[in-house]
C-alpha cells in the first residue's frame, strides 16, 4: 500500500456552484475513499411548516431550489392534495405537466452547459445556455417568473395559458429541437468530450440498485426508474417510455439527459395537443388532515414529499427528500478507484443540487 493523502474537495470548488465537502483519500493519483459532508447552508425549511399555513407553504417549498423550483411546488401540493383528498382539475394537471417538462429542459440544458464548462469547452457552454434562455423566456411569458413561477397552488394552478400561446410554444420548441439535435451530435460524438466522459465513474446496474440511485444516474446504469410512469399530472395520458441506457459512466449520464431534453419536447407537444378545457383549480379550505407520501420525477430524479396534517391550518410535518440526497451514496462509491483528475467530472455528472439537499 502506498502513502495515503487526504485532499479536501469543496466546499468551494470551480465545478461546485454550491457547497458540499468531500474528503478524498488518495493513494498516488487514485481515490481510494471519499467521505462526504453536507449541511453548510442547511436552512431548515421543513421546520417552517409549523409557522406557515399549508396554503402559504408552497411559496417556501418552491424556494428549496432555484432550478427545479416548479417540481418542488407541485410535489408539495400533490402531498397536501393527497392527504386532504382533493381532486385537481384536468386542465391544471396538463398545465403542471407542461411547466414541469419545460423546467426539466432548462435544468438539463443548464447542466449540459456546466458540464461543457467543466471540461473546458466554453463555446459549447455558451451555445447550450443560449438555447436555455429561450425556455426561460417561455416560462416568463406564461408564468411571469423565470426561475420561481408561483403558479402552483393547493387545488390546482393560478394561471392559464391561452390556445394561441400554447401554439406559439409548440412552434418555438420545434425550432429548438433542431438545435438540440446539433448539440447532441457534439456532446455524444466529439472525440475530446468522449475522452473525458467514457469509462469514467462507472456505476453498474447492481450497484445502482444496491445504493438506491435515482434519476438519470440510475437510468444511465440500466434501471427503468422514472416516477412519471406512475401517471401523475397528465403523464398517464401521454405516450412515454423512460430513457434508459446501460453505459453506466459519465458518458451514459450525459446521453440520458440530452435524450430527455428531446423527450420533454415530445411530451409538451403531446400535452398541448390534448389539453382539455376546464377549471384551473378547486376551492380548498379548512384544516389540514390526513397524511400522504407523494413522489414526482424531478430533473435529477425521484423526489419524495410527505405531508401530515393535525387538524389545524398548519401541517405537523413536511418532508422533502431530494434526488441529490439519494445520489450521494452512489457518488461516494463511484469515486472509489477513479483518478483524482476525474473527480470534478464525476461529481458534475450526478448533477448535484446542494440547494435541494440543504432544504
Amino acid at each position, binding site marked *: 500500500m502506498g502513502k495515503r493523502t487526504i485532499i479536501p474537495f469543496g466546499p468551494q470548488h470551480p465545478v461546485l456552484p454550491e457547497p458540499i465537502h468531500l474528503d478524498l483519500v488518495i493513494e498516488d493519483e487514485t481515490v481510494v475513499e471519499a467521505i462526504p*459532508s*453536507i*449541511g*453548510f447552508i*442547511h436552512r*431548515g425549511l421543513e*421546520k417552517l411548516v409549523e409557522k406557515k399555513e399549508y396554503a402559504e407553504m408552497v411559496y417556501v417549498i418552491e424556494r428549496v431550489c432555484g432550478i427545479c423550483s416548479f417540481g418542488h411546488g407541485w410535489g408539495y401540493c*400533490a*402531498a397536501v392534495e*393527497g392527504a386532504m383528498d382533493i381532486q385537481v382539475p384536468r386542465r391544471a394537471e396538463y398545465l403542471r405537466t407542461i411547466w414541469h417538462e419545460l423546467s426539466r429542459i432548462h435544468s438539463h440544458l443548464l447542466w449540459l452547459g456546466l458540464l461543457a464548462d467543466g471540461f473546458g469547452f466554453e463555446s459549447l457552454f455558451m451555445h447550450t445556455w443560449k438555447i436555455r434562455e429561450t425556455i426561460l423566456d417561455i416560462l416568463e411569458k406564461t408564468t411571469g417568473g423565470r426561475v420561481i413561477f408561483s403558479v402552483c397552488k393547493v387545488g390546482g394552478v393560478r394561471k392559464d395559458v391561452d390556445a394561441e400561446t400554447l401554439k406559439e410554444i409548440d412552434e418555438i420548441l420545434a425550432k429548438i429541437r433542431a438545435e438540440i439535435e446539433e448539440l447532441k451530435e457534439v456532446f455524444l460524438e466529439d472525440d475530446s468530450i468522449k475522452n473525458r466522459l467514457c469509462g469514467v465513474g462507472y456505476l453498474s446496474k447492481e450497484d445502482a*440498485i*444496491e*445504493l*438506491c440511485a435515482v434519476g438519470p444516474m440510475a437510468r444511465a446504469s440500466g434501471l427503468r*426508474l422514472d*416516477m412519471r*410512469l*406512475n*401517471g*401523475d399530472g397528465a403523464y*398517464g395520458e401521454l405516450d412515454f417510455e423512460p430513457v434508459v441506457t446501460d453505459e453506466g459512466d459519465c458518458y451514459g449520464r450525459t446521453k440520458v439527459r440530452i435524450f430527455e431534453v428531446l423527450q420533454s419536447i415530445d411530451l409538451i407537444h403531446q400535452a398541448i395537443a390534448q389539453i382539455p378545457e376546464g377549471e384551473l383549480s378547486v376551492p380548498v379550505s379548512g384544516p389540514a388532515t*390526513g*397524511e*400522504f*407520501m*407523494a*413522489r414526482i420525477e424531478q430533473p435529477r430524479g*425521484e423526489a*419524495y414529499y*410527505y405531508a*401530515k396534517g393535525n387538524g389545524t391550518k398548519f401541517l*405537523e*410535518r413536511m*418532508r422533502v*427528500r431530494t434526488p441529490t*440526497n*439519494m445520489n*450521494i*451514496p*452512489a457518488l461516494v462509491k463511484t469515486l472509489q478507484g477513479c483518478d483524482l483528475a476525474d473527480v470534478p467530472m464525476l461529481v458534475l455528472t450526478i448533477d448535484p443540487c446542494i440547494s435541494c439537499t440543504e432544504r
Partner: protein
Amino acid sequence: MKQNIINGKNFVTLASSELIEKLTDLKADGYRLGQICATKVSEGFEIIYSMDKDHSLLNLKLTIPEEEEIMSVTGVYWAAFIYENEMQDLFGVKIKHMALNYGGHFFKVSEPTPWNPKK
C-alpha cells in the same frame, strides 16, 4: 385511480423489534430504500421508512419513545447512512451500529438537535 394516489396512503405500522427482519425480507424481495424521515410526536418519534418496488410504494411506520435506541438499517441498505445521520443530527434520534456515523456532525448545525432542542 392513479398508482401514486394508492401508494401515497400505504402506511403500515411496525414495531421497532421487527424492523431489521422486515427490511431484510423486503430487500430480498427486490425493494429499494426510498427515504427515511423522523417526526417529533408526543409519544417520542415517528419514523417512516419508504420502500419502493417497481414504482409501488410501501411506507413502514414505527413510533418509539424518545430515549429508545433503534437499530441502524445500514447493514441492510448502506445508503441509509444519509438519513440516519440526518435524524441523529436534527432530531437526536438514537441509532446504534450505523455503518457510517458522523457523531452529530453530518450537518453543520449551530446547536445540537435543532428540531428537537433539549430543554
